[in-house]
Structures are given as C-alpha cells and as structure tokens.
C-alpha cells in the first residue's frame, strides 16, 4: 500500500536508494502486520519512519550542498574582499543602501524590542510564566474596574485553579528616618501571600505574614535592598528600627534581596489592610489582584472557573457586578494597562514594520540590479570560465550580505536607543517613573536573532533576486556586453515598484510633513519665563478635606527667609473652574469663536496672586490679581495675549466678560467671568505664535486647595545646580510648618520639560528617518531607471543624433518613460494623500498646510528630474560614431 507521504523520501536521495528504502519499509510493514500489529499502529510507525527519513535526507542535502568542499569555496574570502571593494567603489549605492537598511532595521528591531520588553515579558521569578493577574472588565464602560475588594475576597476563597491569590495597591507617603531628607516614597500595600507568589525569601528578617494584615497588629514594613544599602548602610540590626510614613511609625521586620522589586518597582512593603465588612461592594481602593496558576491549571481553565464565579456574582449583586466580567490576564497586562486590542494592533504594527524593511530591500535590489547590469560582462566571463549559476548567485548574495551587515549594526543601535526612549516614556506612565522589575536592559538575544533573520532576508531579496534575473539568459550575447551595450531590461516589476514608490512618497509625504512640522513647532515652544531659576514640587495635605489655609502662607514666609530664594508661588486647580472647551466672549457672536479657532488647546489653571510676579511675566493691560479676587464670588480672570489675539482679534480685553459655552445638554454655560488683566504669553514659539494656545488664569487661595504645585525661584540660574541641600532645607521647613504636609521630590522645572521632550524626540527621529529613506530611494530608483533607459537606447540615440535630431527631441524620448512612471506615481499618490488627509485631526494646521500635497507632488517630480539629469546629460554626449561602432 502506498503511504501518502512516500514522496518525501525523495529529499536528498538518489533514485535507487529511494527504491530500496521504500522496499525496506514495505517489507517491514508486512512483517509487522503478519505479527498481528494493527493497521493503525503500522501506519503510525511508517509515518514516523518517513518523517525521520525526511529529516535525515534534509540533513544530508544540507551537508552536501553547504559544507561539501566544493560548496565551501562559495563562501570564500575573495568573495568577501570583492564585496568590500565594491562597497568603496560605489559610494552612492553604499550610502543609499546603508541609510535605507539601517532605518528599516532600526524601526523593525525597535518595534520588536519594545514589544518583547513590554508586552507579555517573561517575569524573572521562579515559574514566572505561571503568575497571572485577575481583573474585572466593565463591558459597559469598556474599561477595567479595580474597585474589587469584595471580588478579591471571593476569588481568594473560592478559586482552585489560581492559588495564593493576593492583591496590592500603591500608596505614597513622606518617609522620615534618621537624618535623611524626608522624601516621598511609593509603598506597595500588599497581601502577605504576595511574597509566596514571588517565591523569594527575605534576605534579613522575614517578609510579611497573614497576621500582619489584622487591624490590631502593630504596623510593620519590609524594605528593599537598595533602601537598606542607601539608608541603613546594610546594617543587619535594622530589624526592629522604625521609619515614619506620614504620621505612622512602622517597625522594619525584613529586608528583601537585591533586585527584588515585586510587584512592580517597589522598595517598601506594608500589609494590605482592607476590611470588606466596612467597605461597600464596588467601593474601596483600586486593587491589582494576582496569583499563581495551580499545578495542572492553564490560563484557559482558570478563566472558565473565574467566569463561573463572575456570573454568580453578577446574579447575586446586579447593582455592582452586572456589567463586570472577571478576566485572567498575564501578570503585566493590568499594570501596563494593555488590553488585547492594543496588543493586536501592536503586533500588526510589527508586521507592517517588517514589510517596510522588505520594501526597502526591494529598493536595494533595484539598485543592485542596476549595478549588476554594469557587471554583466564580468558575469559572462566567469560563466564562460566555468562558474556555475549557483556560484555567481552566491557571490552576489554575499555582496548583498556584506552590504547589509554594517547598516544592520547601525540599525540595531538606533533601534535600541528608540526602545530605551520608549521604555522611559512607558515607565513614566506606569508607576512612579521607575522601570518595572521585569524590564530587561540592553539588546536582548531574541532581538539580535530577529535582526540576523532580517539581514538574511534583506540580503536574499537584495542579492539573490537581481542575481537570478541577471544570470537567467546565458551565452555569447552576454559576452558582447563587454563591447558596450547592455542586453538587460528592467522588467515590469521594477517599473511597478518605481510607480509604487513615487505614489507612496506623494501620498505619505503630506501627512509626514504635517506631523513633522507639528512636532517641531511643539518642540520649539519655549517658556517665556526664566525656567532655569525655578524649582518645583507638588505639595499636598494629608487629607483632601483639609485645605492648606495659613500653613501655606507660613511655608512661603519661611522659604523666603532663605538667602537663595527670591520668590515663592503656587498654582492649583479648582474642579469647578477647570473647564476647557469653547469660549464665549460677551458681545462677540459665538460663531466667530467657533471651530476651528477654539479647537486649539486652551489652558486654564488657578494661580496665586504672586504668580505673574515670581514668573517674571508682565501684565500688559489691566492689573494683576489682588487678595480680594480669590473669593468665590469675585469671578475674575486674567487672560494672555494669545487669548486676545484668538478671541478678540486684538481688541481691548480688559473689562469684557467671558465664559465657557454650553457643551451639549449635560453642561450648561459657566457663569460670566470678568477679564481684569492681560498678561504676556506663558510660552512663546519663534516660528508660529499660534502654536501657543490661549490661557485663562483664575485666582486661587490656600484655603481652597489640598493639593498644589509649589514653585520656588532661586537667585541667579541656580536651579540646574540645585543640590540636595536645598531639597533637604525645603523638606525640613515643610516638616516644621506641619508634619502632616507631604512634599514630592524637589526638582528643577526644566527637568520636567526635558521629559516631555522625550516623546517628541522619538516621534521626530522615526518620522524624519522614514522620510529621508523614502525620498532617497525614490530618487535612486528614478536614477537607476533613467540610467537604464539611456544605456539601452545608446545605439538608437547615436543614430538619431547622426541623422540630425535636435537634443531636445532626443531628451524628450529618453525622458518619456521616466516621466510616464513618475507621472503615474504622482497621480496615484495624490489620490492616496486625499484619502488619508481626513485622518489628520488638526483642522487649523491642515488648512494652513493645504498646499503640502501639491508641493510634495512637485518635490517628487523635481527629485525625478534631478535624478534623471546625470543620465540624460550622458545621453546627449553619445557620439554617433561610437554608439554605432559599439554594436
């Protein structure tokens, strides 16, 4: 009987060997059946035998082809030397390909590295892949619901497929210990069983125990290794010492080992105390719930069990749980706030980025093909001397490999830089700005492997495709190429690629230019005040219902007595005043302030009466705030120049009234506010003043705030050099005013600015490198096409010139093909640009840059003309006698 997989036995075998092998299998098969084996068992056996034979055949074929002595010659050192020499001899090609491949690999590897380190990373803990998160998904609100104390207790008590179910929440408090500067620290309030999930024993002392969670137990804390080292000098007698978080003293009971930062990036752990009997269902703190899959359980089986519990809860507590679906997720997902949809789109992005690289590789292939054409004679000679097609293809593949190795390294480095930037931005978003413990630094082996794969694919496309094409036809015709003309043609694929290239450039260029201009403008926006003299921090009272009152005035008075301090002020916001949206100015019809004008970011926040003074911002009309303005009934605002330009067309603002217009049926218009003054813009932009959105400032008083942003102006440009001394002084002053006040880290204001700039930088780098690549390749493609056309029609041009054709006519005929392709590309591209234009949300910018699409079409035409110029000039210099003689 014939086995359906028998054909696989051909792999790597001669005919007689295959016949004999089939015979052996048949003989053995019959023997087995005769011994009473079932047909199924014999079928399974022969399938296994064939599979093995296939593997052995593949191995033999590989050994024979790749490692046989003759084949080894193919990867010879002379080939590599020749490739390096060619890189130097064709600098244009080398530069274009290097830039292109480097950008492609940078983008693809950055994407890969970022996904690898953030989406579903491996937790560096014992059986870290079995640690899972449990979270309620509110399918009505389409967001997660972490007020899940009651559900947490139910899950912990009922689930069997996830064990050691624990929860944590993050707190922040001012920590005071010994002589150190008090600092605001982030604390993980975690169930004691969380340590069992992590399976990491304490380095000194113990970790938290279930008993510690009881309300009556004395407050205890476990500290991290870094804190133990920096604050306690690795003193083992730290156990039993006390630290103070806010008002409460905690006894240190343990130190965790180095690099232990579970659950995210924490150094302090206190027991999670949350009593479900005193907190109503659906209320209470936001909890992150996690646990370990029980032996034998899978995510899927755990989900089944959890869903059943969820349905039960939805039936029992419809008010709170009817719209909640509990989910089993990988541990990092809730912490990174990643839902499946996001992951899917990111993976899609990864695929697209790999495709970008393939397009780049195809472009390099065109260029290499153009070069290969000029080496047609060399290839013919080698063939005549006995080189096989495989030998020549291998040589061209190695050339492409050498060509892509350097850009691969550049791309890897650039990609890694982007990954680090991305991780820094993500960490800022996640928790407290520190990297989570699972984040691996540096280039990962998996990324390197991925890049290696990309290099081979790139080299295969860029080297083997043109090589196969160039070696397709053999014979004496190629040897004739030594005499001058080329017998090669650019096939329809290359033409299509150039059309697509130009179309893509024209379609994407406008969007990219708009985005680029937008980013650059934003980047150039500078503060209009001496930021280098300012340091700031956030200050909060211990309790949201107790505002600062006189404590803030006292804090300011004491800070001002310090010699380096020249001013102290604060900003804060009142929920009822922090409205954004459409502005209405009394006496001016709403229509004139309607879109697009109001769509640009309006900023509004509350300021202290000293604010403009401390920031050095002049009042250009009217007056600054005074102490009476802050009362709730006063209803006064100060606007900036940008506001006056935008909404009042530069007419006088002082004395007019403004309000926030109604926003749908749910929000009525705000009360009217009187404009008492006009201040200078807070920010300025050297190239486009309109980037600076209008600002509305309202007065706030310390008795209205429980949380504010404090700014201290230091003498001279002291802020960048601000050392720990001032921070300690500020903390001590704060503690002296009232220990109940909390203060964040004191930082120079410009530091915060530079963090904002990170994201802008990332976008700008990515965008500009893609743009440069697309333009470079478009130009190179057109150049290659034009060179080809001229080389192919050398003889014809010569004859036409000899017959007296004018140079213009000759040029026109040469240009026509390039013009047709560039033209077709431009037309398609304009359609594409029109199609994607609505995706850009910024109406004002879009209106202002309406000329970008025609301009980018023009740019592409110009690039085409410039790229065609060199070959065209060459065509005009063809001497009729030479051209005809060459044949």
């Amino acid at each position, binding site marked *: 009987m014939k086995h359906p997989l028998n054909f696989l036995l051909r792999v790597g075998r001669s005919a*007689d*060997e295959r016949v*004999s*092998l089939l*015979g052996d299998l048949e003989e053995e098969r019959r023997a087995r059946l005769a011994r009473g084996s079932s047909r199924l068992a014999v079928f399974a056996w022969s399938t296994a035998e064939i599979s093995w034979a296939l593997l*052995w055949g593949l191995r033999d074929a590989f050994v024979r082809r790749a490692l046989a002595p003759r084949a080894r010659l193919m990867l010879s050192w002379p080939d590599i030397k020749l490739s390096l020499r060619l890189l130097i001899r064709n600098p244009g090609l080398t530069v274009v390909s290097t830039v292109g491949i480097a950008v492609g690999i940078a983008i693809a590897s950055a994407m890969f590295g970022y996904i690898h380190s953030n989406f579903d990373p491996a937790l560096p803990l014992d059986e870290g892949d079995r640690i899972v998160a449990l979270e309620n998904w509110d399918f009505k609100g389409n967001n997660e619901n972490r007020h899940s104390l009651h559900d947490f207790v139910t899950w912990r008590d009922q689930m069997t497929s996830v064990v050691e179910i624990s929860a944590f929440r993050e707190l922040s408090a001012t920590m005071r210990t010994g002589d150190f500067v008090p600092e605001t620290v982030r604390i993980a309030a975690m169930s004691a069983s969380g340590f069992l999930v992590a399976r990491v024993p304490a380095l000194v002392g113990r970790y938290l125990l279930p008993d510690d969670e009881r309300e009556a137990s004395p407050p205890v804390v476990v500290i991290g290794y870094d804190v133990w080292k920096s604050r306690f000098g690795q003193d083992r007698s730290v156990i039993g010492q006390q630290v103070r978080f806010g008002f409460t003293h905690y006894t240190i009971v343990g130190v965790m080992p180095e690099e232990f930062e579970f659950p995210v990036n924490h150094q302090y752990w206190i027991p999670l105390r949350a009593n479900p009997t005193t907190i109503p269902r659906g209320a209470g703190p936001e909890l992150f719930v996690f646990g370990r899959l029980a032996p034998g359980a899978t995510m899927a089986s755990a989900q089944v069990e959890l869903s059943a519990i969820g349905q039960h809860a939805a039936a029992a507590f419809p008010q709170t749980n009817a719209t909640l679906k509990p989910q089993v997720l990988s541990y990092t997902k809730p912490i990174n706030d990643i839902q499946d949809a996001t992951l899917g789109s990111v993976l899609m992005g990864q695929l697209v980025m790999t495709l970008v690289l393939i397009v780049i590789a195809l472009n390099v292939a065109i260029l290499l093909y153009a070069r290969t054409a000029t080496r047609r004679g060399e290839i013919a000679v080698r063939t005549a001397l006995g080189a096989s097609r495989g030998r020549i293809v291998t040589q061209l593949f190695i050339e492409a490999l050498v060509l892509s190795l350097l850009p691969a390294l550049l791309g890897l480095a650039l990609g890694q830089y982007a990954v680090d930037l991305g991780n820094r931005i993500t960490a800022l978003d996640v928790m407290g700005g520190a990297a989570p413990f699972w984040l691996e630094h540096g280039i990962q082996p998996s990324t390197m492997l991925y890049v290696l794969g990309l290099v081979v694919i790139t080299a295969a496309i860029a080297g083997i495709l043109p090589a196969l094409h160039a070696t397709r036809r053999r014979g004496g015709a190629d040897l004739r190429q030594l005499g001058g003309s080329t017998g090669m043609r650019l096939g329809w694929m290359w033409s299509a690629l150039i059309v697509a290239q130009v179309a893509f450039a024209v379609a994407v260029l406008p969007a990219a230019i708009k985005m680029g201009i937008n980013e650059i403008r934003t980047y150039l926006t500078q503060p209009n005040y001496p930021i280098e003299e300012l340091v700031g921090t956030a200050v909060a009272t211990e309790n949201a219902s107790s505002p600062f009152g006189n404590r803030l005035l006292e804090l300011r008075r004491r800070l001002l007595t310090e010699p380096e301090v020249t001013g102290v002020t604060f900003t804060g916001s009142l929920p009822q005043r922090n409205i954004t949206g459409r502005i209405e100015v009394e006496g001016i019809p709403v229509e004139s302030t309607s879109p697009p004008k109001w769509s640009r970011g309006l900023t509004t926040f509350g300021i202290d009466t000293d604010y403009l003074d401390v920031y050095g911002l002049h009042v250009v009309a009217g007056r600054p705030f005074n102490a009476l303005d802050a009362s709730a009934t006063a209803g006064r605002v100060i606007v900036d120049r940008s506001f006056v330009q935008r909404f009042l067309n530069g007419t006088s603002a002082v004395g007019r009234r403004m309000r926030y217009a109604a926003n749908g049926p749910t929000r009525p218009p705000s009360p009217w506010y009187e404009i008492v003054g006009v201040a200078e813009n807070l920010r300025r932009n050297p190239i486009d003043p309109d980037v600076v959105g209008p600002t509305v400032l309202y007065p706030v008083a310390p008795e209205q705030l429980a949380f504010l942003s404090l700014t201290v102006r230091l003498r001279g440009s002291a802020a960048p050099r601000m050392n720990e001394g001032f921070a300690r002084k500020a903390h001590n002053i704060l503690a002296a005013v009232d220990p109940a006040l909390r203060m964040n880290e004191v930082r120079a204001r410009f530091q915060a600015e530079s963090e904002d700039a990170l994201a802008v930088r990332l976008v700008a780098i990515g965008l500009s490198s893609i743009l440069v690549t697309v333009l470079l390749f478009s130009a190179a493609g057109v150049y290659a096409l034009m060179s080809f056309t001229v080389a192919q029609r050398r003889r014809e041009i010569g004859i036409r010139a000899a017959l007296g054709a004018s140079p213009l006519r000759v040029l026109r005929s040469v240009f026509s093909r390039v013009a047709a392709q560039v033209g077709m590309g431009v037309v398609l591209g304009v359609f594409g640009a029109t199609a994607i234009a609505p995706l850009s949300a910024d109406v004002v910018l879009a209106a202002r840059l309406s000329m970008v699409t025609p301009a980018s079409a023009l740019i592409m035409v110009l690039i085409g003309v410039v790229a065609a110029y060199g070959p065209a000039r060459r065509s005009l210099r063809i001497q009729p006698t030479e051209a005809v003689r060459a044949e």
Partner: protein
Amino acid sequence: MADYLGEFEQLVLLALARLGDDAYGVTIRATLIERTKRKPSFGAIYSTLRRMENKGLVRSFAGEPEAVRGGRAKKHVVLTPRGRVALREAHAAVVRMAEGVSL
C-alpha cells in the same frame, strides 16, 4: 592512518561483517535492534551507509525485485577491505582504551 569511524558507523559496519552477503536495510536494522537494543530509523541507516560508501568503506549492489517488497529491489551492502581495516582499527582502539579499566 585508517579512517575515523563514529560510534554508529562502527555498529553498522559490525552488522555488515556479521551479516555477510545478506546485509540490506531490513536485516541491518534487525541486527542492530537485536544486539544493541536501539531502534535506529531506516533514514539514519541509509544516511550512514551512503556516507561510508562515499568514503569507500562499504560497497553496494542492487538485488532482484521481490514481491514481499512490493516489487522493489534490495540494495545489498558489503564491507570493502578498507572498511574492514577501519573497523579493526576502531575496535582495537576501544580495546586499548578499555584495558585495565574496570567497568
């Protein structure tokens, strides 16, 4: 210097020496299973045989087609003198290495 032999190559050559004229895929495999308690696949045996044939250690010739083999011919394999020398050398090396060693 005789040819270097891998362990599986030695076993296959010993099977050939034992089987004499009746050595082909099925009998070689049966001998290996019987005496070494291993179950090598036909693919592995064929790869080894071809490798040794390329080195000149064995020689093969086609037999007559047989009904029990679905009408296919056997490929008989015999040791060449060079193969016999290599086998002897390899065996001697093992014996020398094992001399005085209690196993």
